[in-house]
């Protein structure tokens, strides 16, 4: 029999997870003109786009424009989407092996890292990702509760999620009304009594992960003054040397912008956002009512590691910051997938350059691949997943050429569709999504918003008239 990849016998590929990594794997495969490849993209949610829909902040609509390229990929005649199908719940790896030559896992990093400090689980302490998923209308998080009657909030971390959370907390209702933030979140934030927001970075201003456009944006909030402590942003000798050595002009600029905030007089806006540096949380303290009442911080100083990385080192100076709400954003971690080898050390699918490895032999498992955050860990921007996915697809095509494939018992596209619809009668296709999308945009247009999201699965199904189409 001829090798798969021809019109008579297309290469059949399943991709699990319809975020950017999944779409980029699909794009790299479908772009091949010398091979005939069928791509089925599965997601546990009825809707595609992963964190572009459920992670990217609602006031950053331009970043979401990348979905246009995903739609282009989805328009390929050999692409199918199965929304609402979860690996481990509706299908398992054996089901996929029985129907595909290759499987790629692109499920992202679905959980947050813990701070590992006392009081972390007190009511009022939340992973920032939960708040993000909530305000973005992720169906699994739309019933979350956050006590926005608190006036003082700490956001631990200075990565882009931490900055998003702090910024959304500081936005006025008028600013949020122009976004696609979930309706219930808009109402909750309209009632918010938050007045003081602290962003807490463990290293110095020069090492903060946020980008210069993000810092500038924090200085232009309609309803919040930005505040910085001069001694915390002054450039120290180590950081200056590191910036000079690496020729990091953006790093110098970042410090410059923050120093300008330190000099800026408060304009008397209703809220205040304070950017703190060189502090690490060591405990969350009880308010006396069994909830978060404060956060204990230790002051850090900077030291350089053997490789020149500037690191935070705790001093013996500490302080207590009274806050009633804490969001932690100190990193993410992948979640193991049922039946897929996991590398607990790095929190990723056990892999070498995208090839899934057998945990015992450390040799590639034929036909199984991974890309995106579940492959390399949570780093980079959306576009970083494109070269990452290319590395994986290169491995997939090398293995195709070498005949290292799964041997599915039934590679008929109709067979797997029958199986999926039998296991999950409410499966949605891309055409369903495009209809939902049009409905969301139309609902938004009526109110001067980019879209008004459906946030519950039954709501989506009702809008589609309880029936799905391919």
């Amino acid at each position: 029999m001829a090798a798969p990849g021809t019109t008579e016998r297309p290469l059949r590929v399943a991709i699990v997870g319809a975020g950017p990594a999944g779409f980029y794997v699909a794009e790299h495969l479908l772009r091949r003109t010398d091979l005939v490849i069928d791509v089925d993209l599965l997601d546990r949610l009825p809707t595609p786009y992963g964190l572009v829909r459920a992670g990217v902040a609602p006031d950053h609509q331009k970043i979401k424009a990348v979905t246009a390229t995903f739609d282009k990929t989805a328009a390929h005649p050999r692409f199918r989407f199965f929304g609402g199908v979860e690996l481990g719940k509706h299908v398992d790896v054996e089901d996929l092996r029985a129907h595909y030559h290759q499987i790629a896992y692109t499920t992202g990093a679905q959980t947050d890292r813990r701070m590992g400090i006392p009081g972390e689980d007190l009511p009022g302490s939340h992973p920032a990702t939960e708040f993000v998923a909530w305000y973005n209308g992720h169906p699994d998080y739309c019933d979350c509760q956050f006590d926005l009657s608190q006036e003082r909030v700490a956001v631990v971390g200075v990565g882009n999620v931490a900055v998003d959370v702090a910024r959304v907390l500081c936005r006025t209702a008028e600013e949020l009304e122009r976004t696609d933030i979930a309706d219930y979140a808009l109402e909750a934030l309209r009632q918010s009594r938050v007045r003081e927001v602290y962003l807490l970075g463990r290293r110095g201003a020069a090492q903060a992960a946020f980008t210069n456009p993000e810092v500038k944006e924090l200085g232009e909030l309609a309803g919040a003054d930005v505040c910085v402590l001069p001694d915390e942003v002054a450039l120290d000798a180590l950081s200056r040397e590191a910036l000079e050595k690496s020729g990091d002009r953006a790093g110098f600029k970042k410090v410059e912008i923050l120093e300008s905030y330190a000099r800026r007089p408060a304009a008397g806006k209703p809220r205040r956002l304070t950017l703190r540096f060189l502090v690490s949380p060591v405990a969350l303290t009880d308010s006396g009512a069994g909830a978060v009442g404060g956060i204990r911080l230790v002051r850090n100083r900077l030291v350089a590691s053997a490789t020149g990385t500037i690191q935070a080192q705790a001093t013996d100076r500490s302080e207590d910051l009274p806050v009633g709400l804490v969001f932690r954003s100190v990193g993410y971690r992948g979640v193991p997938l049922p039946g897929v080898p996991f590398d607990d050390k790095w929190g990723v699918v056990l892999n070498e350059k995208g090839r899934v490895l057998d945990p015992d032999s450390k040799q590639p498992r034929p036909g199984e691949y991974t890309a995106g955050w579940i492959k390399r860990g949570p780093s980079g921007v959306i576009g970083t997943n494109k070269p990452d996915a290319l590395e994986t697809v290169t491995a997939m095509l090398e293995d195709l050429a070498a005949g290292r494939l799964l041997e599915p018992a039934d590679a008929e596209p109709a067979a797997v569709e029958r199986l999926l619809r039998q296991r999950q009668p409410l499966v949605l296709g891309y055409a369903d999504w495009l209809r939902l999308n049009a409905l969301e945009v139309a609902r938004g247009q009526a109110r001067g918003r980019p879209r008004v999201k459906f946030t519950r699965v039954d709501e989506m199904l009702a809008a589609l008239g309880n029936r799905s189409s391919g």
Partner: protein
Amino acid sequence: MNIAGILATKGDKVVTIRAEQSIREALGLLAQHNIGALVVIDDGRRPIGVLSERDIVRTAARNEAVFGLLVSHLMTRDLILGTPGDDLGAVGSTMVTRRIRHLPIMDGGKLVGIVTIGDVVKAQRDHFQGEVDTLQTIVMEQGH
């Protein structure tokens, strides 16, 4: 971005050798695994040096008996060790200025991987490509 992101897609293979082994054995390992350097470890699996193909070539150019020498004779002892949390940028600039091609990575006193200058270049290239791609998407959107 940090070094952990590189190690995450390399499996956890670090090819090691002992100081009292021969250069012949070292060459066998380098060829077998198609790599450029070995981490030299002691009884407690602690790295005490790095032996690179360059170390061997340098000696081989003037000593035909290089095969019989011991790893301890040729290895670089002036060792720089990284950690998974090290910044990609800092590691890259240190490897370039110190002319290091292979960096053993330690975590909690244990050898957990090795990062090559090629790994660092590729990670930085992917990082920049990703940023350019995302920025282009945003700029294109602005044009609408």
